[in-house]
């Protein structure tokens, strides 16, 4: 240490002119307002900005000049031997010179800033950018620049073939870093990228500094050999860092189902055993990977992207095809989505990219029952495409004054039917539901009916039964009417399912036999009412205490799952599920607060149709800790599909 300090103090004494230059430069910011004729607060600001600019420029210039001249210049002029002929270790020689450089690039800018700061220490300019910015960015950056200049000086002055290695490795490492960045950013693993970037910001300067030290310690007075040592140390360490980064980024974006710590979004197919789900994975920060999972057979397909707030997957009605959007931002102008499709009947299903792309304005996405056609609403335009070739089959502009309801279904391959909300002229919050039909072959759009008044758009809830061509409408507020049954073509009211007593709020659902169930709550009590397919009331049964109740699909025909929320707080931990036998009217509680995965508040982005009895939506359940378990409908045995994680914020 004594030797290092001796070298450092010698360097500083010999380069004291740098501090004299800094003292002279410190006057410039004070003169700036005078020279530009600026007064008052603006003059203070001008002085601060000028001082910072001069300080930064001086720090950069000193770092580059001193870094490039010291050591490499001494080696080229064969003057470093003077130090190596003394009882000084290589580390002391390098450390002393580097320490002197660090002092210079820190103290000289401080000298520049000092008079201006003394002139106006309370300036907001200092508070906003001065302190933190100067210390946290400029100071380490100047040290890095110093080390970089030293390394570059050696590489350039040595004129050895290792310069070719330097250039090649620079390209290789840059490409490796770029590929890890793209891998993480394309997957939306921004937090992991931030960690990686932070690691690189620390590792790269550290590698350059260490390589500079090793060059002096091992290369000693031999510039050529020093360059070789420098290159080997620098590039091997950077290559190691890059490969660690590569491995880390690969590990981040290749989680398995077993890595998940609970699920954030689930989307079961309306039929079959496939499931789309997304959840945080161990050690991956904010990255939320998504999967398609065959719950019965354990097959899974990783979806590209991070799905923290959305799971843009849609299944065909038979559950044998799926399509989803992959976010591809930062590749040009704004956020883009590329459409991927998959045929889940394959032994080993593989995602296929299509030529179909969307903007962030996409509202609705629906696959035809056979999975070959895809309908989408984007920017007020309805388009139908071949899901595999990407060919556009038809497109039409939708009426501008209507709002998509996120419900759309293929009524046969050639016809699309969908309800849209049409705000009233007087109050745009309320309005009517217009039922529209689109003929793909002719490209013609035709309104077939309307439900009016439909109530408030924000509170509107529609359930569809394409088989029987009926719509269940529900609005949240009792004064707007209870659940109603409508014809899905004309919108004609078929039945009013509102409770005869005041104050009940209900959520309706179609049953497998065509009947209708309405789960209702009032004043902390829940009940279930059952209707015929025409909407005639049959019976009702008490479900105990409840804040809200929701039908959640039939586990088997005639065995309806109902979710009862006990409070407004937690969706899962504050809820319980019961199984109602519609024949015996027996109510059986499900164990340990399991919530059916097909329950709408959990499973959404797009509506694929009502879950068929016995489908995966009615056999898999969310646990209180956001895990996912499958319950055998016959034996009742549970199997963990996704392990739970820490309590989620809902």
């Amino acid at each position, binding site marked *: 240490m*004594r*030797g290092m300090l*001796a070298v450092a103090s*010698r360097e500083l*004494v*010999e380069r004291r002119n740098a501090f004299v230059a800094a003292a002279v430069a410190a006057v410039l910011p004070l003169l700036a307002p005078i020279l530009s004729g600026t007064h008052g607060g603006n003059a203070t600001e001008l002085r601060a900005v000028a001082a910072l600019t001069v300080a930064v420029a001086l720090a950069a210039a000193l770092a580059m000049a001193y870094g490039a001249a010291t050591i490499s210049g001494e080696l080229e002029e*064969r*003057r*470093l*031997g*003077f130090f*190596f*002929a*003394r*009882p*000084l*270790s290589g580390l*002391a020689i390098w450390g002393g010179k580097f320490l002197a450089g660090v002092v210079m690039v820190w103290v000289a800018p401080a000298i520049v800033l000092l008079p201006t700061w003394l002139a106006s220490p309370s300036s907001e300019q200092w508070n906003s950018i001065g302190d933190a910015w100067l210390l946290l960015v400029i100071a380490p950056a100047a040290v890095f620049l110093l080390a970089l200049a030293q390394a570059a000086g050696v590489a350039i002055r040595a004129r050895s073939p290792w310069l070719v290695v330097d250039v090649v490795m620079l390209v290789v490492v840059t490409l490796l870093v770029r590929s890890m960045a793209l891998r993480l950013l394309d997957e939306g693993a921004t937090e992991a990228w931030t960690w990686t970037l932070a690691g690189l910001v620390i590792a790269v300067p550290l590698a350059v500094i260490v390589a500079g030290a090793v060059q002096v310690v*091992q290369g*000693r*007075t*031999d510039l*050529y*050999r020093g360059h070789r040592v420098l290159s080997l140390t620098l590039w091997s360490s950077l290559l190691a860092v890059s490969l660690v980064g590569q491995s880390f980024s690969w590990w981040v974006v290749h989680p398995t189902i077993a890595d998940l710590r609970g699920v954030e979004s689930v989307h079961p197919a309306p039929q079959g055993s496939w499931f789309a789900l997304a959840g945080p994975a161990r050690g991956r920060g904010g990255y939320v990977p998504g999967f398609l999972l065959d719950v019965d057979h354990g097959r899974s397909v990783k979806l590209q992207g991070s799905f923290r707030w959305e799971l843009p997957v849609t299944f065909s009605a038979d559950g044998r095809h799926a399509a989803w959007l992959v976010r591809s931002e930062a590749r040009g102008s704004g956020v883009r989505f590329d459409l991927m499709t998959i045929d889940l009947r394959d032994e080993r299903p593989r995602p296929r990219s299509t030529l179909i792309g969307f903007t962030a304005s996409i509202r609705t996405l629906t696959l035809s029952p056979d999975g070959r056609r895809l309908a989408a609403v984007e920017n007020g335009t309805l388009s139908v495409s071949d899901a595999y070739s990407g060919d556009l089959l038809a497109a039409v502009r939708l009426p501008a004054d209507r709002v998509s309801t996120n419900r759309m279904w293929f009524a046969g391959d050639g016809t699309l039917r969908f309800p849209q909300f049409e705000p009233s002229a007087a109050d745009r919050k309320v309005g009517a539901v217009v039922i529209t039909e689109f003929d793909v072959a002719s490209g013609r759009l035709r309104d077939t009916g309307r439900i009016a008044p439909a109530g408030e758009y924000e509170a509107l809830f529609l359930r569809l039964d394409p088989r029987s061509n009926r719509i269940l409408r529900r609005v949240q507020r009792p004064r707007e009417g209870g659940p109603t049954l409508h014809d899905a073509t004309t919108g004609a009211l078929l039945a009013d399912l509102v409770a005869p007593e005041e104050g009940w709020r209900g959520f309706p659902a179609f049953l497998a036999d065509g009947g209708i169930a309405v789960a209702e709550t009032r004043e902390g009590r829940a009940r279930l009412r059952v209707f015929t397919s025409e909407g005639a009331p049959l019976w009702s049964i008490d479900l105990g205490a409840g804040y809200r109740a929701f039908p959640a699909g039939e586990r088997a025909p005639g065995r309806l799952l109902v979710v009862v929320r006990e409070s407004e707080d937690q969706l899962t931990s504050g809820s319980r599920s019961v199984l109602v036998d519609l024949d015996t009217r027996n109510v059986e509680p499900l164990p340990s607060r399991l919530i059916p995965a097909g329950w709408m508040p959990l499973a959404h982005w797009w509506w694929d149709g009502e879950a068929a009895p016995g489908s995966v939506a009615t056999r898999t359940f969310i646990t209180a800790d956001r895990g996912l378990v499958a319950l055998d409908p016959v034996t009742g045995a549970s199997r963990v599909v996704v392990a739970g994680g820490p309590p989620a914020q809902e």
Partner: protein
Amino acid sequence: MSGTTIPAKVERLEVRYGGMRAVADVSFEVRPGAVHALLGRNGAGKSSLIRCLLGQRRPDGGRALLFGEDAWTSRTRLMQRVGVVPEEPDAPPESTVSRLVSFCARLYRSWDGPGVEERLRRFAVPREVPFGRLSKGQKGQVMLALALGHRPELLVLDDPTLGLDVVARKVLYEELVGELADRGTTVFLTTHDLAGIEGIADRVAIVRDGELVLDEELEALKGRFRRLRFAAREQEPRLDALGAVAVSRSGWGVDAVVSRWDDGAAGRWCQGGGAVAEPVVEAMSLEEIFTAMVGGETGGAQ
């Protein structure tokens, strides 16, 4: 001085630059108190050898030892016992002599401040002039003063007289002789100034193309080398028994340098049938021996 420890020693030393061997399988040692001169033409490998010995370059083969320790791994500690005068004065040019002295004084456990001051005064070197502005001779004198400042046990000089005028060379040799007389410091040096070194060197080693071709006491060396001149005859006299190093012929006769001359040499020559009438036998200077060894067509120490 540490007893019988050999101050400097190289064992099968090898130095390569890319595919070129600068030093090849060189072994010798510098004995305590000796003045050991390493001679060789430019590019013979002397500086590479010195740099290995000073721990400034890792040998590609073999070992370089100072006081029995590996020069590469123990350089920092060993430099407390070694003074170095490089081929080119390499002190920082912006530093004044005063600052160089005070810098060096901080680095050594024992620093002979008055001695350094006395030497610089004797050399009449200006103290407050930057080193880079000194004359070549003054730079060499400063380097010598700094090298002797910590009373080294071993002084290594890499061609210290290069570029010096006669007066500067004389001053340097006087200083060396004085140091030797006062303290018995071991000296290992390379030089092209063979005449200058002849008076103070005890032992001489010669390298040629990276290989050690000779390492011997100077007196013994000079004792066995002779120049022979004799008239030409029809039958060439045989010089093999005398270890001919260089033989040249001209109109008047033969000029030969032999390396195995001793008191009985003339007799052996006669018995071998090679004797000629009245050969002229001359003793040789170190410079002449060196020239015959590395400059002639016939090579190799005999």
